[in-house]
């Protein structure tokens, strides 16, 4: 399930986390929140970020013997 989780502390600090997205979709989906609220001061990409939504495997045949 794709979710954007936003924690707002009693000191007014905002932390945003995307869950269930693969690849750059998380950045696209959460962009509007960052634009609404202010400036992004920290970003950490997680392993899921580096997974493409559609991964294709190419197989090559050795035609030259």
């Amino acid at each position: 399930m794709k979710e954007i989780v936003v924690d707002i502390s009693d000191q007014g600090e905002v932390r945003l986390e995307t869950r269930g997205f693969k690849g750059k979709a998380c950045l696209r989906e959460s962009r509007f929140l960052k634009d609404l609220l202010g400036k992004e001061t920290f970003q950490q990409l997680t392993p899921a970020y580096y997974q493409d939504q559609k991964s294709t495997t190419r197989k090559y045949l050795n035609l030259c013997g």
Partner: protein
Amino acid sequence: MSHISRIELQIKSLEDLKAACNELGFQFCEGQETYRWYENTRGIDLDALSPEIQQMSRCDHAIRVPRCKFDIGIVKQDDHYELRWDDYYTGGLVKKVGKDAGLLKQAYTLHKIKREARAKGYRVVQKKIDQGVRLILSA
């Protein structure tokens, strides 16, 4: 997870700030040009204060907080608004708005996100967490 971000809040919407004030029981004073703080509540006429103090007392709007001697000034800066207020204890604001006006910023952020996220078709769930509030947006 996909990524984690931290965001430095900038207040860009007066509508959401008004809604936050309403929720917290504060009075949004649209167009009020000065706000009360230590230097201008000592019984001295504003015109008699130094130009620096007069300038620091100016704002575009203000927020009155019940049972507080001081106000919060709202000053337009380019594309956002800055909150100006005196946290000196006699003004009583820290108890009501939190350190760095955190509780006011929190209420503003909640209104802003919920309104915009619902307009974009997200389902929004709000939960209380330790020392804050969590919003979960799902499509």
